[in-house]
């Protein structure tokens, strides 16, 4: 039995879709609405196969009206239903952010807890396939900075399923960011990390917990989604040189698992934070600040940050490769940190 399960490998998108399917079977009040979630199955496969299972009444294609259908999800959630709505690319948030941050995120608080908002806003993030400035962002911090929404960004298929299950069952609004490259789609980069063991039955992975993806004693690297994947790649190479890197896969930006980060830094005394979002006023800043507040004296060298250098994501391959952190850049950064002292 166990061994059979171990054999069960799914791509990220199938893991997500499976979580949604299982919850829809459990609960009549769960439904999906968004652009091309029906016959198309979600541009990035998040709803693959769901239309056939549940029909157009519960898997609803929408017009290109993000304010209307996300607002409708909010209205339905206020009535106690559990909508899952998809913002096709996170880059499009600007046409509907008022519904998201002023309403979905604030209504529970403004109502003194009297109105719950049990909904999931799922959205595709990430670049490195030359989709340019309006289709390649992660915008992790743009959402994480604004209070009232849980903001998660799982990396592995196992977490994609488990955290989606948690998100759907959660009574608070959850922004569920899935990384395009980690969906394991046939028409994008084929990545080992985008396929993984996923149990058949429903299970949950908590929303607010970081994961120590690799243990090490010399340097702590905090990353999320593709940056975790690259950090693990760099860690392999560094290990060959006797440098033991601890890699923390953040998984959740809100709530943020400070403790796991602080514990690690107290052990390794060195911190590198890597982000596929913009450098300034972003995730790398927040993690750095927390450590500078709460573990300053544990640091043996200055904190280092790697992220998009505050320019829009350029289209051309050499330009995009220059701005997005890579395993090589992470490797170099760690070497520099260790040489510096």
């Amino acid at each position, binding site marked *: 039995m166990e061994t059979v399960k171990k054999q069960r490998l799914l791509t990220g998108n199938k893991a997500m879709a499976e979580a949604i399917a299982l919850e829809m079977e459990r609960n009549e009040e769960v*439904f999906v609405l968004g652009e091309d979630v029906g016959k198309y199955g979600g541009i990035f496969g998040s709803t693959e196969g769901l239309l056939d299972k549940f029909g157009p*009444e519960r898997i609803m294609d*929408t*017009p290109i*009206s*993000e*304010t*209307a*259908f*996300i*607002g*409708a*999800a*909010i*209205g*339905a*959630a*206020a*009535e*106690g*239903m559990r*909508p899952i709505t998809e913002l096709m690319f996170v880059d499009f948030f600007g*046409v509907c952010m*008022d*519904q998201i941050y*002023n*309403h979905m995120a604030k*209504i*529970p*608080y*403004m*109502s*003194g*807890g*009297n*109105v*719950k908002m049990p909904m999931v806003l799922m959205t595709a993030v990430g670049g490195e396939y030359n989709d340019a400035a309006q289709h390649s962002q992660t915008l992790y911090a743009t959402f994480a900075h604004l*209070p*009232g929404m*849980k903001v998660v960004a799982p990396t592995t298929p196992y977490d994609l399923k488990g955290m989606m299950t948690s998100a759907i069952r*959660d*009574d*608070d609004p959850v922004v569920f960011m899935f990384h395009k490259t980690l969906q394991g789609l046939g028409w994008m980069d084929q990545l080992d990390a985008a396929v993984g063991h996923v149990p058949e039955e429903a299970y949950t992975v908590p929303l607010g917990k970081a994961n120590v993806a690799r243990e090490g004693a010399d340097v702590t690297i905090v990353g999320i989604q593709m940056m975790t994947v690259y950090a693990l790649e760099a860690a392999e190479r560094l290990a060959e040189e006797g440098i033991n890197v601890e890699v923390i896969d953040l998984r959740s930006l809100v709530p943020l698992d400070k403790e796991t980060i602080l514990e690690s830094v107290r052990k390794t005394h060195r911190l590198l934070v890597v982000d596929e979002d913009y450098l300034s006023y972003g995730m790398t800043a927040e993690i750095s600040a927390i450590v500078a507040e709460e573990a300053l004296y544990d640091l043996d060298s200055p904190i280092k940050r790697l992220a998009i250098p505050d320019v829009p994501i350029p289209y051309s391959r050499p330009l995009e490769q220059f701005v997005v952190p890579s395993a090589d850049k992470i490797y170099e950064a760690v070497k520099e940190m260790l040489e510096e002292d």
Partner: protein
Amino acid sequence: MSIPREKLLWMYEMMVKIRYYEETMEEVYMEGKTPAFNIGAGTVPGEMHLSNGQEPAAVGICAHLTDEDTVASPHRPHHHAIAKGVDLNRMTAEMFGKATGLGKGKGGHMHLFDPRVKFACSGIVGAGIPQAVGAALAAKKRGTDAVAVAFIGEGAANSGAFHESLNLAALWKLPVIVVVEDNQYGISVPKDSATSVESNHLRASAYGIVGERVDDNNPIEMYKASERAVERARNGEGPTIIEIETYRFLGHFQGDPELYRGEDEVPSLREKDPIDRLKNYILSEGLTDEVELTERENRVKALVDEAYQFARESEYPEPEAALEDLFSS
């Protein structure tokens, strides 16, 4: 189509109740703001948008709603809230910033939520429309005959949310009614400087739905148009836009210098006070006498007084409570 006596009397007393509530708020709002007006000072601080003169829009349609129907209201929400039956004590306490308020003091005047009667409002122009669509979607999915009403001002009909929401509601044949209160202004900007069409009910043709216009702030015509719209909605015939011509007796918010409108404008509006007109109608039709009307007036005014007293006597929340209610888990 004649209106049941009880409904007429209900509309009348509700309009009186709303007006008295707002007039009381006018005074309460000034407590602690004289001699020098400071928006952040006094018993009820912050912005205050009152609805004096706009009662017909609220009572004309709420007369057809039950607790199971949803209302999404904008920044000027009191008349809708009262007509929908929101808990008056807790609503008032909310605006006093008290722990007994609907939102424990966290929401305030533009953020009144009473799930018991499915009432919500927002300070963002147009934002309530898609949320009403969502409530209607929930009703349809659950197979109830509930409807959702979004109240907006004529200025909000130029927001993207209006268009997207009506298209979606029409497409999915959802039981939504958008009531556009045309009080001629979006703050200082007159309707004809903001809206490219005579009346927003004409925009119904952009969605293949029914649009109705109610002139002259007439509560009886509003009642009738609403009856038709609510019936269509409950029968699965989809959304309706109702635009009602109404009057804003006061400034956009309390403290508005109103330099943008003429001296004589408001007085001439007040001459057409819809409450007086409805009263005269009721009496002329012999539906009841002065005595009963006065009785009813006194009863509802007592409830309003009670609400303000409740708010006044309630306690402020503990400062630390600011950290609660963000997440439920």
